[in-house]
């Protein structure tokens, strides 16, 4: 009796130990050894945590950088990619996703990593040229072929019967650019010149214009039948499900949708005014220090500014910071459009986020009033 009881104990303990051991091996193995050790120098692995619309860009850029790094140092570099909504990705990094570099949609998201996580210095944006934005973009309209609802500018979005597709600004960085671009348009229309925002003498006028802008954005959202959680979800809703007359999209997303999903189905419309979107990049200090990958991570981001990097960027419909390096044919695709800066019109991302998108902000108020 006593014997067999002991056997039961041993058996159960053994099974549990084996299983827990297996997990432990994965834990330790997962962090230590790289899967891609090569004969020569030890391969290095970088993790680039990015937002949705850069998938195709980094699919081409990563091998290019790996070739460059191999030629320069003889070391193999494997770059892993993680994509998702910008807010979600930033939160994952804060919670411990070991990103060597982040390439996100908004400075606000990287600020959050610095502020909430303390994973990089607060002055990260001044470390790389051009506000740490090796490429810029803007917001354009994607409409059905031949523009049946004749949508030319932001005003046309609130015409009766027009359905607008844009993601949810609460969960999507792209949607926040869309929203702010619409707001900027309304301000400009009221004030004539956005410089008035900074004239103390015109404070009363500005206040009135802000109220009108709010009405315009509220009206615009009444024309939105679906708020997907991310930019890619909206593109799918518009292109695959056939919902809506116009999609507010990143310029590169719009080009990509036209190419991937059918040049005969969609047209791109450029509004009179849009926003200067500067998707920033940064090295996550805490992670690279721990992993010892600072050198290669910094080089990776710098390579985005190199002639080759800029060429790839332009090929994927991002506007290069240094257009002189890009293929002129690629540059020709970018239409001229007045692009306003967040800092000038909205006083920076942090303020814009607090005023418009945080809980209880303008976006919430718009929806609570209208229902």
């Amino acid at each position: 009796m006593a014997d067999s009881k002991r056997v039961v104990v041993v058996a159960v303990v053994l099974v549990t130990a084996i299983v827990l051991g297996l997990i432990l091996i994965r834990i330790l193995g997962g962090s230590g050894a790289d899967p891609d050790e090569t004969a020569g120098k030890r391969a290095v692995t970088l993790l680039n945590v990015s937002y949705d619309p850069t998938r195709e860009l980094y699919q081409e850029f990563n091998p290019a950088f790996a070739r460059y790094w191999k030629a320069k140092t003889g070391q193999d570099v494997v770059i892993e990619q993680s994509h998702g909504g910008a807010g979600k990705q930033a939160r994952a990094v804060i919670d411990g996703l070991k990103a060597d570099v982040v390439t996100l949609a908004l400075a606000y998201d990287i600020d959050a990593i610095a502020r909430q996580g303390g994973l990089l210095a607060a002055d990260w944006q001044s470390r790389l040229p051009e506000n740490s934005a090796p490429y810029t973009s803007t917001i354009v309209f994607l409409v059905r072929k031949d523009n049946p609802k004749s949508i030319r500018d932001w005003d046309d979005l609130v015409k009766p019967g027009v359905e607008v597709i844009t993601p949810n600004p609460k969960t999507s960085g792209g949607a926040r650019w869309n929203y702010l671009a619409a707001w900027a348009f309304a301000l400009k229309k009221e004030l004539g010149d956005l410089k008035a925002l900074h004239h103390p003498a015109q404070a009363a006028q500005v206040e009135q214009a802000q109220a009108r802008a709010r009405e315009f954005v509220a009206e615009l959202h009444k024309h939105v039948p679906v708020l997907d959680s991310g930019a890619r979800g909206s593109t799918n809703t518009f292109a695959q499900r056939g919902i809506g007359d116009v999609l507010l999209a990143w310029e590169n997303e719009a080009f990509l949708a036209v190419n991937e999903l059918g040049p005969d189905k969609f047209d791109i419309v450029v509004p009179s005014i849009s926003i200067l979107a500067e998707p920033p990049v940064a090295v996550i200090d805490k992670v690279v220090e721990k992993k010892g990958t600072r050198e290669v991570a910094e080089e990776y981001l710098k390579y985005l500014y190199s002639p080759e990097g800029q060429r790839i960027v332009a090929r994927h419909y991002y506007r290069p910071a240094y257009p002189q390096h890009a293929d002129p044919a690629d540059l020709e695709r970018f239409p001229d459009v007045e692009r306003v800066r967040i800092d000038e019109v909205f006083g920076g991302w942090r303020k814009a986020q607090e005023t418009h998108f945080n809980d209880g902000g303008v976006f919430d108020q718009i929806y609570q009033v209208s229902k």
Partner: protein
Amino acid sequence: MAGTIAFRTGSASSGAAGRPAITEPAPVRWALIGVSLSFLGLFLLIPLAGVFVEAFRKGAGAFFAALRDPAALAAVKLTLLVAAIAVPVNCVFGLAASWAIAKFNFVGKNLLITLIDLPFAVSPVISGLIYILVYGLHGWLGPFLSAHDIEIIFAVPGIVLATLFVTFPFVAREVIPLMQVQGNDDEEAAITLGAGGLQTFFRVTLPNVKWAVLYGVILCNARAMGEFGAVSVVSGHIRGKTSTMPLHVEILYNEYNFVAAFAVASLLALLALATLALKSFVEWRSRRPFAEAPDAAVLEDLSHEH
């Protein structure tokens, strides 16, 4: 007896054997069957067919090319690995819990059963969130784990933990009711005849409940392979590294790669169908009366050994 919800089958075959003398007139019967079939068709069959039609939209070549993609293969491997860890662990737990709960009477038993059921009713989003609160960089164990370079969240262990959570009750909830129904007589007889605890468990209890265990394992496995919400929160979505098959479907879908997305989805659907087939087989086997039950001979055999 209150407690575990027996989410178990009882399907067809026995009904046919003991069909009640009274039934409805034929038109009513066929109307009801018709309603059942159209309801199931509308809600189950058409979505399933949709997955396969989309997967083969560009032909079989594109379908198989999508499945040979290294990232897809990595996702398949990870999914299998996670299931291979989660299922045995929860199986051992399920057996231990059933033994304690079904064979003994103790204070707080109903509360324990409700707690075991709890993960079933918890939103998958919450299941992921709680592990971030514990193991995340700013969670309870975060600083310790970070100092010792142990990765849990956004790595395989986190995915395993989230999967363990969502598949937690399945084996236990299948086995407990059956063990309760069967009572302690066989085991008590075996022990009285001098058999050891381990012997009793493996030669008397386990054969009695083995189909319930297998059934629980199948349910557990189906859920382990298909979980999306909870795993999505803790995975980090690193392509080819921490993406399970359901997550990979989402990634492909977001890359406008619909054929590939539905190809991987159809693979998951095939796994689901295989699971269902296996489950039907288990039900069919378990219904063969007393085929495997320990009888007097086994007990006698046990008593001889001692």
